[in-house]
């Protein structure tokens, strides 16, 4: 077999020169050490992983090692990593990069991630993996640094674009790769032009079920793996949304994609304890809620009905939240859903509310838990109120919002971990915020999109969580909140379902806009009874079609426990 052999001769000349010059010569011990060092660094086998012994301070989970091995040995270094949230895709990517670097197969690496994650990736690669990654800040970095982390938006813009496209990369890593599903976008086109030997696409959103997305993503990774557009359509497309020969396609996709699920990882996940906490509105709160509900009967447009639902939800959260909305409506004077006098009368009712029954309940609960608690609410006004309210009772809390800069998020997390009992958050805080040192979550009000609840819980129910996780769902009795809780909790078993399942089900049945379904039901129903019937239908649709397993979380946990012992 004809293989190119490169015999490096730079040693020769220097050696001959030393013979002429009669030295200098090394000492024997160092000479031996140099050879020993090289023996330690040499790669004994084509297969297997070297990286773990270079990273003794990291404990890899079995599935993470398996992913790295599979990507390198079976997928030839081109793969879609699609593990469920929380299983450590970043770790897997770091491990693969490290392995290629140790083997001398990669030097130049480009890591494209959302702008908010650039620093986190850089720190993690440096601190955990000793990979000298640099966050792209100046344009010379592209050429001068070997391992660069950047946002795709920066990289694709001039003057960077031309420089980046000119580099020969050994590895390209793209986080949140599901955003590249549309081939008509600038991002897609940009990534298509990158020169890459090895490539990792990271996504938590499974793509199996969308015809075009799967084709585009795989074609970016490995053009031709699914054929070209024409024969792909012929082989696999049924119509715009659905597929044929699904099994065959799945086999093909699985050659380039790895997806681990929590329940398959064999890990002992902490248990989830979910508890509904019913709350009775006080007389003044009830009066306010009912008055707002009555607005629905006014003969106005659908738009105003939507406003009614918004107000109902807000009142269930705090009078402050509702107050803000009404104040805005009054100030806007024109084009309002409701006449001013009605708004003013509601304002009066708001002023009459003397207590917040939910906050009272939250306070009792926090005091009895006597440990770290995260409260999630949908409303900024409620967040502010709660902070004040808890402070009145001697409980320290820190706020948390999606809009915070990364550094502020980290600082707030630090404050919460070390100095405060409660964190009050308006959203899950995005990827990468890990609050697994906390075991209690209060869902002060419930979002209507089940994925957002999953993200909330995912912040603490993840690898690294030492204890069991407690989730308290607040719902005011005889309000829309009760309907939502009934739907999400009692009917579709959301809280017990295995993470990730829901995502797939919603994707599969185009129920991503489940919020719209819910508000549609709430707006267009004439009576409480009608709401209940329609909610039941929605629930059974999801359950029947999607087949969320009716097994409870604990049962999953128990099954795993026994397979472990």
């Amino acid at each position, binding site marked *: 077999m004809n293989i*190119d052999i490169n015999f490096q001769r730079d040693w020769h000349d220097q050696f*001959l020169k030393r013979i002429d010059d009669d030295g200098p010569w090394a000492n024997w011990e160092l000479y031996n050490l140099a050879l020993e060092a090289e023996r330690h660094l040499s790669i004994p086998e084509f297969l297997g992983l070297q990286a773990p012994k270079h990273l003794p301070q990291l404990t890899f989970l079995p599935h993470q090692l398996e992913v790295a091995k599979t990507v390198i040995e079976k997928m030839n270094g081109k793969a879609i990593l699609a593990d469920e949230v929380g299983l450590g895709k970043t770790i897997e990517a770091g491990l693969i990069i490290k392995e290629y670097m140790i083997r001398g197969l990669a030097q130049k690496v480009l890591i494209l991630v959302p702008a908010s994650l650039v620093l986190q990736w850089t720190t993690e690669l440096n601190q955990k993996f000793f990979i000298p990654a640099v966050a792209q800040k100046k344009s010379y970095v592209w050429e001068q640094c070997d391992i660069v982390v950047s946002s795709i938006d920066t990289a694709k813009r001039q003057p960077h674009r031309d420089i980046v496209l000119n580099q020969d990369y050994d590895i390209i890593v793209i986080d949140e790769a599901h955003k590249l599903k549309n081939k008509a976008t600038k991002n897609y086109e940009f990534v298509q032009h990158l020169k890459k030997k090895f490539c990792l696409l990271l996504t938590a959103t499974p793509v199996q079920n969308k015809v075009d997305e799967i084709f585009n993503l795989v074609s970016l990774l490995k053009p031709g793996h699914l054929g070209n557009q024409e024969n792909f359509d012929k082989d696999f497309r049924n119509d715009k949304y659905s597929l044929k020969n699904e099994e065959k396609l799945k086999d093909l996709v699985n050659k380039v994609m790895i997806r681990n699920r929590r329940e398959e990882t064999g890990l002992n996940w902490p248990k989830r304890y979910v508890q509904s906490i019913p709350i009775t509105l006080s007389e003044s709160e009830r009066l306010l809620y009912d008055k707002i509900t009555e607005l629905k009967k006014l003969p106005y447009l659908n738009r105003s009905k939507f406003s009614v639902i918004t107000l109902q939800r807000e009142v269930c959260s705090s009078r402050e939240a509702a107050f803000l909305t009404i104040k805005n409506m009054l100030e806007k004077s024109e084009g309002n859903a409701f006449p001013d006098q009605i708004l003013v009368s509601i304002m009066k009712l708001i002023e009459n509310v003397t207590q917040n029954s939910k906050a009272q309940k939250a306070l009792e609960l926090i005091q009895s838990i006597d440990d770290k608690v995260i409260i999630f609410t949908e409303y900024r006004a409620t967040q502010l109120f709660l902070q004040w309210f808890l402070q009145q009772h001697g409980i320290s809390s820190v706020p948390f919002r999606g809009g915070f800069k990364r550094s502020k998020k980290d600082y707030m997390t630090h404050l919460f971990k070390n100095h405060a009992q409660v964190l009050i958050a308006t959203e899950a805080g995005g990827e990468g915020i890990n609050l697994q040192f906390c075991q209690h979550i209060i869902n002060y009000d419930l979002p209507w999109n089940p994925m957002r609840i999953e993200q909330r819980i995912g912040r603490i129910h993840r690898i690294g969580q030492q204890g069991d996780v407690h989730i308290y769902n607040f719902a005011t009795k005889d309000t829309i909140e009760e309907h939502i809780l009934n739907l999400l909790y009692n009917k579709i078993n959301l809280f017990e379902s295995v993470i990730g399942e829901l995502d797939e089900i919603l994707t599969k049945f185009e129920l991503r806009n489940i919020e719209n379904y819910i508000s549609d039901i709430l707006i267009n129903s004439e009576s409480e009874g009608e709401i209940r019937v329609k909610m039941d239908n929605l629930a059974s649709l999801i359950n029947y079609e999607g087949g969320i397993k009716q097994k409870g979380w604990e049962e999953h946990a128990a099954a795993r426990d026994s397979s472990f012992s």
Partner: protein
Amino acid sequence: MQQQEIHRFLERFFVSNECEILEKTADSLKVQLTIELDKLLMNRPFYWHYLEKTGAEPNPMTLTLYTGQGQPADSSGEFIHFGSPRLHQIFSSTKKLASFIRMYESVPHSGINIALNPWLCINVKISYQCDRKKDMIHSYGIHLINGIIEENFHEKLQTIRLSKRIPDYCYTLSPLIKPVSGLKRLENMIIEKIHEDDHSWAEDARMRWAEDEELLNRFYEDIEEKPEYYYGEKEALQTQYEPKITVSIINGGLFYLANSQKG
């Protein structure tokens, strides 16, 4: 590499570089660096530049390294493990400091003059690379008079007492084969050995390459004018899969040994 092995390696490294060991426990080491090692390891070119300009008293640093769990919380020492950048820096410094050598067998003095035979030894790393990689390390010595080549030469050297200077009552035989020819002979022999090896790894890599290229061609088969990135992708497949073999010399040198059979 186990932690004790690392500890042992570090100690030998510093001692053979003439650094004073200030403190030593089973899993820690505090050393006074020499000027040379400070320049090599501590990455402070400005300090040394400044000293040269001002002629001030040089003050090389001390270095504290831990290889066990017993590192005190307030210490400024570094924890060293197999992946730590410091160890890799020391590895590559070792290689830099010990690429070339000349040694003599230290023959016990028996009153008669003894001839020492010239040997040229190289320790080589041979790497097989495609989208995967494997290294092999070999040590060869060639007798510079009769041309005999010995394998595992470095291992054999371990059984011989060696010294930097030629012992009394010893003299060296002049080589008939020049070092540059000796190197050439070793090179030919190594290449021959490589050709005899099993290269199914390269065949497999070429197969993987062909598969991927086939897919790529199918992807663009209906397009008359292939886009630029088609060619980019094709090139990338070549760099990814094309089998290559690299031979590099780790270190080597001249050894004068008493008995030619022994080498």
